[in-house]
C-alpha cells in the first residue's frame, strides 16, 4: 500500500518534470534568447578579425601569402597528409596560391566580408562567408596560430548559427524602415510558402539560434575549466609564483618596465593573490554562471584578468575573443537595463526615461486561433 502510494505520489512529480521539460523546449522554439548578446558577439568577431587582418597587412604575404616560409607547396603537402576528400581540401585551401595579386585580392575580400558581417549586412550570408574566411586563414598557416586563433575560429563558427542580425545591424535597420513605410509586412523568406511552413521555419531558426548559444556557452565553460584544471596541477601555480615567472619572459613583455615592477621585490603576495584569483575564477566559472548575482561578479573578474593580460603580456587576440565569448552569458534584460542606465545618465535635467520592461523578454506570441480550433491553448505548440 505504501509502495503504491509512493508510486502514485512520484508519478505526479515525474509528470510535472516531464511537463516542465517539454515547456522548456517549447520556449526554446518560440523565444530567441540573448539577441543583443548575439549581435554584440557578431560585431566583436567581425571587428576583431578585420582589425587583425588590417594590423597584419604589412606582413600578410610573409604570413599567409606566396612568400610565406610555409610555402604554398608545403601547405599543400601538409593538407595531403590528412587524406581528406577533395571538397574538404578545397574548403581549406583557397589561400594556398602562388599568385600574389590573387592573394591580396582574397585578403581584401576577407577584410570586406569581416566588416560587412560586423555591421550586419545580409548577416546570414556574410556570416557563413566570414566563417570560411577565418577557416582559410587558420589552415593556410597553422604554425602561426595560437590559442587566440583557435578561440576566434570556434566562436566565429558558433556565432554563424545565431540570429545575430536581429539587433544592431543594417538588416534590422532596413526591416525597421520597411515596416515604417509599408507597415508590418508579411515577411516571408521563401515567397509562396504557406503560413504553416513559414512558422515552422521561424521556429526552427529560433531553436538553432538557442542551441548555438548553448554550445558556445558550453565551449566557454570548457575552455575556462580546462585551463584551470591544468594549472592546478602545476607546482608554480600551487605556490602562487607562476605570474612571477611569466612576467620575466621576454616575448610577453610589451612594457618591460611594467613587468619588472610587477614582478619586483615586495610584490610576491599580490602576485600570488592574482594567480589564485586566476585559477579559482576559471575553475568555478561553469558553476558561477548559473546564479544571476554570482555570474555578474564573476564576469567582472574575468573582464579584469583579460584586460590585465592585454596590458601586461600583450596577449591581444586571445583576451579579446574571450571577452567577446563571455558576452554569451548576458541576457537581453542586462542590455535593456544597461541602456536604461545610460539614458538616465545622459538625460536632460528633470527628465526621467521610462524604465525597461521587467521580465526576461518580450511577451510570448499569443496563439492566433487556428482555423476551426478557436480558443486553442498554448500547450498545443
Amino acid at each position: 500500500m505504501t509502495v503504491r502510494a509512493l508510486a502514485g505520489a512520484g508519478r505526479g512529480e515525474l509528470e510535472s518534470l516531464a511537463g516542465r521539460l517539454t515547456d522548456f523546449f517549447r520556449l526554446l522554439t518560440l523565444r530567441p534568447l540573448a539577441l543583443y548578446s548575439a549581435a554584440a558577439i557578431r560585431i566583436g568577431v567581425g571587428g576583431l578579425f578585420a582589425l587583425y587582418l588590417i594590423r597584419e597587412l604589412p606582413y600578410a604575404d610573409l604570413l599567409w601569402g606566396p612568400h610565406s616560409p610555409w610555402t604554398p607547396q608545403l601547405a599543400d603537402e601538409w593538407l595531403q597528409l590528412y587524406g581528406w576528400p577533395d571538397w574538404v581540401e578545397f574548403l581549406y585551401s583557397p589561400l594556398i596560391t602562388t599568385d600574389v595579386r590573387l592573394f591580396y585580392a582574397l585578403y581584401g575580400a576577407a577584410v570586406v566580408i569581416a566588416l560587412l558581417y560586423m555591421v550586419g549586412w545580409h548577416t546570414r550570408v556574410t556570416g557563413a562567408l566570414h566563417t570560411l574566411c577565418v577557416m582559410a586563414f587558420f589552415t593556410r598557416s597553422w604554425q602561426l596560430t595560437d590559442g587566440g586563433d583557435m578561440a576566434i575560429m570556434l566562436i566565429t563558427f558558433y556565432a554563424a548559427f545565431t540570429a545575430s542580425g536581429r539587433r544592431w545591424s543594417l538588416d534590422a535597420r532596413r526591416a525597421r524602415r520597411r515596416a515604417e513605410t509599408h507597415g508590418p509586412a508579411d515577411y516571408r523568406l521563401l515567397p509562396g510558402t504557406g503560413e504553416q511552413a513559414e512558422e515552422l521555419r521561424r521556429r526552427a531558426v529560433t531553436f538553432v539560434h538557442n542551441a548555438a548559444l548553448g554550445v558556445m556557452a558550453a565551449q566557454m565553460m570548457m575552455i575556462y575549466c580546462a585551463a584551470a584544471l591544468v594549472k592546478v596541477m602545476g607546482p608554480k601555480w600551487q605556490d602562487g609564483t607562476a605570474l612571477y615567472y611569466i612576467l620575466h619572459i621576454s616575448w610577453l613583455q610589451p612594457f618591460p618596465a611594467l613587468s619588472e615592477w610587477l614582478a619586483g621585490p615586495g610584490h610576491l603576495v599580490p602576485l600570488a593573490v592574482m594567480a589564485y584569483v586566476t585559477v579559482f575564477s576559471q575553475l568555478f566559472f561553469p558553476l558561477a554562471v548559473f546564479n544571476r548575482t554570482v555570474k555578474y561578479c564573476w564576469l567582472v573578474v574575468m573582464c579584469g584578468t583579460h584586460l590585465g593580460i592585454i596590458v601586461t603580456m600583450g596577449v591581444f587576440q586571445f583576451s579579446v575573443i574571450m571577452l567577446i565569448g563571455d558576452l554569451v552569458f548576458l541576457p537581453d534584460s542586462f542590455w535593456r537595463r544597461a541602456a536604461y542606465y545610460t539614458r538616465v545618465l545622459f538625460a536632460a535635467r528633470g527628465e526621467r526615461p521610462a524604465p525597461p520592461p521587467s521580465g526576461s523578454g518580450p511577451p510570448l506570441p499569443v496563439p492566433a486561433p487556428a482555423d476551426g480550433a478557436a480558443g486553442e491553448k498554448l500547450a498545443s505548440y
Partner: protein
Amino acid sequence: MTVPPPVTDRPTAPVPADPAERLAPGGTSLRPRYRRALTAGAVAVVSLALYHCAMVFLAIAPPSTVKNHAYRQVDWWIYPWFEQGWKMFAPEPVATNRAVEVRVYGADGASRWENLTAMDDARIRGDVMTSRQHANVVRRAWDGLSGLDLRKGPRNAHERIKFRYTRNVMTGRMEQLGYHDFDRLQVRVRMQKVPPFDDMNAVQPVRTVVLPWWKVRT
C-alpha cells in the same frame, strides 16, 4: 496529480512592437504534421549539440580509457575546425627565455650569429597588439622542432615538412637582414631560466643547443 502549468508570461510592461521581430515566431499554431517535423528537427539539433560537446570534452580531457577507445572518432570530429588546446602557461608556466640565433656560411665563410629573438622582442615592445610575424613565427618554428631528432633529421613526412618550414623561416629572416648567396645555415638556441623567486638576482647559467649545419637550396 499535478498538471504542469502552461507557459505563460509574467506581467510585463508593454513592449513596443519591434519591426526587427518580424522573424520571430508569430504564434501561429502548427498543425500536427509540422509540429512533428519541428520536434524531430529539435531532437536532431539537440543530439548534434550534445555530441559536439562530448567530442570537445574528450578532445580537451587527458588520455583515458574512454578517449583511447574513441581516439579516431574524436580526432575526425575535432580537426581542424574545432581544435582545442588550452594549456596556456600550464601546468608549468614558461620559465625559460630562449634566444634563437642563426648564422650562414657563404663565399666569405661563416657570418656572425644573428639573434632573431632579440630583434623580434624589440618590435614587440610598446605594442599590445603584436604582429604574428614578431610574436609567433620564429618562436613557434623552434617549438615545432620539439620532439624531433635534431641531429639525425626527419624520420617521416610530417617531420620533413617541419624541418623544411623551420629552414625556410631562418633563411627568409637572414635574407631580410641582407645575407644572400649562402649555401648553409646553422641555428643555435641559448636558453636561460628565470631566476627563482626567492633569489631574484641570481645569475642563471646559459645553456646552448647548437644544431648541425643545414644545406640551403638557393
